[in-house]
């Protein structure tokens, strides 16, 4: 199983901020993704209209999801494929294992799939004597390192080039140790050559899906490396693992969403490979798999329908929300403690693994609103994080000190005179603490905040008293 460390979110975040390698690696996220998305969005006049169109499609699908799933299933079967319904992660693992066992599979190549992370497929295959081989370069790197993705579209974004070189030297022992490995290009060539062999010898290929098209029973993957295509073309069996909300009604609907996907994710106008697969090899087909299976995973999603978290099911996993998140930039993806990091993870994880385990995540937000403003699917992420905070509070899951202080604050806030007195006293106190350079280096009861940054000292009076003075001076002007 992927170990869930979300309950230790605070400790995770602290050690992430002290991790030099990680901080170096995260520097790249801050600039790259943000600039590229902005340029791509600005380069298409219809971008905002397409966002609205994409939202409308997904909202419509969620209103008729049962019917579209039935239609999709019917079309997959018609094209010679098999559909397996999995209520839980364990069910999905079992179904995939069954298919692999029947095929006598020894190695399984894998395209990039967050769902496969969600169901912890690799561990389950390995425990049953089947070797899973990740083939996306980023996934391959972290598999060597025994890690999990720290970003949903750039899984190894937390790793530096020096670390990759060390990993390759350690694991690729059949190659001369003094070979040149100083350029990203040399590292990529080496991985390509090693994985080529794996592609050609694998018995089963597992891919995810960005879309499932109901009108034709088609699964769609969107990639850049071409590994997903080799994964699904060369082995005898192709297994698609996808969650139920990936449905779109038609190819045209898919095209609407595809237009905002890559632009929001990597800033490309279109990813290199958008591959639409429908069933197994046909009569006269010289290549392609003999068997085509789709495992449809629910794992808690159907229970989100009709709740305040339903909008989250519109997510197309583009990663824009984490690319633009100051909290994600500061701590990276692993601190979130489970499969999905960043703002989308802070909303989705509590739904999938429970607010008792992931309740801290929705607190990892400055509510700056950047995630929502760049989300191509207009998902109100900050609002939903607030819902989770409320639920956490209601369930008495937040720590006693926090609950006590909120209750205390509420008591004081309801008494205006007392509130004003305390506020002006503390404003003066903080003003004194600020000293000569107007910065507060450490604050009693808020050391968690001041450990990593100074707090600017306030002006010495409260907003209310300044407002009163301002109003009075205006009157004087008249």
């Amino acid at each position, binding site marked *: 199983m992927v170990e869930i460390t979300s309950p230790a979110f605070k400790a995770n975040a602290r050690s992430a901020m002290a991790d030099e390698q990680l901080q170096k690696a995260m520097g790249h996220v801050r600039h790259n993704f943000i600039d590229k998305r902005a340029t791509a969005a600005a380069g298409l006049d219809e971008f905002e209209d397409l966002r609205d*169109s994409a939202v409308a499609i997904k909202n419509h699908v969620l209103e008729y999801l049962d019917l579209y799933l039935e239609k999709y299933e019917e079309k997959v079967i018609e094209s010679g494929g098999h559909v397996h319904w999995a209520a839980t992660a364990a069910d999905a693992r079992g179904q995939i294992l069954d298919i692999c066992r029947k095929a006598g599979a020894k190695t399984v190549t894998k395209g990039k799939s967050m769902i496969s992370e969600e169901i912890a497929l690799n561990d389950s295959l390995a425990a049953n004597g089947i070797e899973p081989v990740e083939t996306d370069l980023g996934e391959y790197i972290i598999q060597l390192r025994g890690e999990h993705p720290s970003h949903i579209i750039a899984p*190894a974004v937390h790793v*530096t080039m020096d670390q990759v070189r060390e990993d390759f030297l350690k694991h690729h022992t059949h190659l001369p140790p003094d070979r040149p490995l100083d350029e990203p290009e040399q590292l990529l060539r080496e991985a390509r050559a090693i994985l080529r062999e794996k592609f050609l010898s694998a018995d089963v290929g597992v891919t995810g899906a960005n879309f499932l098209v109901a009108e034709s029973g088609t699964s769609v993957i969107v990639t850049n490396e*071409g590994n997903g295509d080799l994964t699904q073309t060369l082995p005898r069996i192709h297994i698609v693992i996808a969650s139920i909300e990936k449905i779109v009604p038609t190819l045209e609907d898919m095209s609407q969403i595809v237009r905002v996907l890559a632009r929001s994710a990597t800033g*490309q106008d279109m990813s290199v490979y958008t591959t639409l697969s429908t069933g197994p090899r046909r009569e006269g087909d*010289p*290549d392609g798999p003999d068997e085509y299976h789709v495992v449809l995973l629910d794992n808690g999603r159907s229970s989100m329908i009709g709740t305040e978290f339903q909008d989250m099911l519109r997510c197309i996993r583009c990663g824009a929300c984490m690319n633009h998140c100051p909290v994600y930039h500061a701590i990276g993806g692993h601190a979130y403690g489970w499969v999905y990091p960043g703002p989308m993870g802070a909303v989705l994880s509590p739904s999938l693994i429970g607010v008792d385990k992931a309740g801290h995540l929705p607190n990892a937000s400055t509510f700056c609103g950047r995630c929502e403003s760049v989300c191509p699917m207009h998902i109100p992420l900050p609002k939903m994080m607030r819902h989770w905070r409320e639920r956490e509070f209601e369930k008495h899951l937040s720590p006693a000190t926090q609950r006590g202080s909120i209750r205390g604050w509420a008591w004081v806030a309801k008494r205006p005179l007392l509130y004003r007195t305390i506020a002006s006293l503390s404003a003066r106190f903080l003003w004194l603490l600020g000293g000569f350079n107007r910065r507060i280096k450490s604050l009693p009861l808020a050391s968690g905040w001041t450990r990593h940054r100074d707090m600017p000292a306030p002006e010495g009076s409260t907003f209310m008293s300044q407002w009163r003075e301002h109003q009075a001076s205006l009157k004087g002007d008249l």
Partner: protein
Amino acid sequence: MSQRDEILGRIRSAIAPNGNDTERRKNLRTHLTSNGVIPKLPKSRAGIQTRFKERAIVADATVEFSKPEAVAKNISKYLRDHNLPAIIKTGDDQRLRKLLKGSDKLLEISRGISDGNDLVGVSHAMGGVAETGTLFMTSGKANPTTLNFLPETHIVVVNENDVEANYEDLLKKLRRKFGVGKMPRVLNMITGPSRSADIEQTLILGAHGPLRLHIIIVRN
């Protein structure tokens, strides 16, 4: 209860506990009602082709126009310019057969799927989309999928009449060819050669798929 019924039941009770499925089915989207927002592009053939070329180049492909009778010569010139041997692998595509007929002196041609040992694959596209410089490739004996991915150099021939403005234009053609609700086993929409930015976000061309993508647009 099967897992299928369990999942569908949960969804149904959340969205339409008392819904009448026959009525609800009438509201489903079909290809006739789902066109949505279509990016504006030049109207003229020439304008569309120019845009296609521009966008394909932005995606790191190379593009040339060619008369039908010059296709073989242009392929061999491209290979020479890239220090590649004049040996190509193609499928059984009739249009390609015609274009390459009588080119034995220029090119050594073998046909079939790729097993990973071919340096150069040559395919014929179903069409191209100007919006993003994207090629549509359909699977089958004429153009095996493996040729799109295994050879390090991929040369794609497309007829100028099949270069359209938007994805939707080619999807219509696809439906005409395969039928409504039907698809080829694989439709590859390809935009440029393969790439990865997984190492410190440095973009490198040539990941698991081709390192080079060269597009030849055939003028009639």
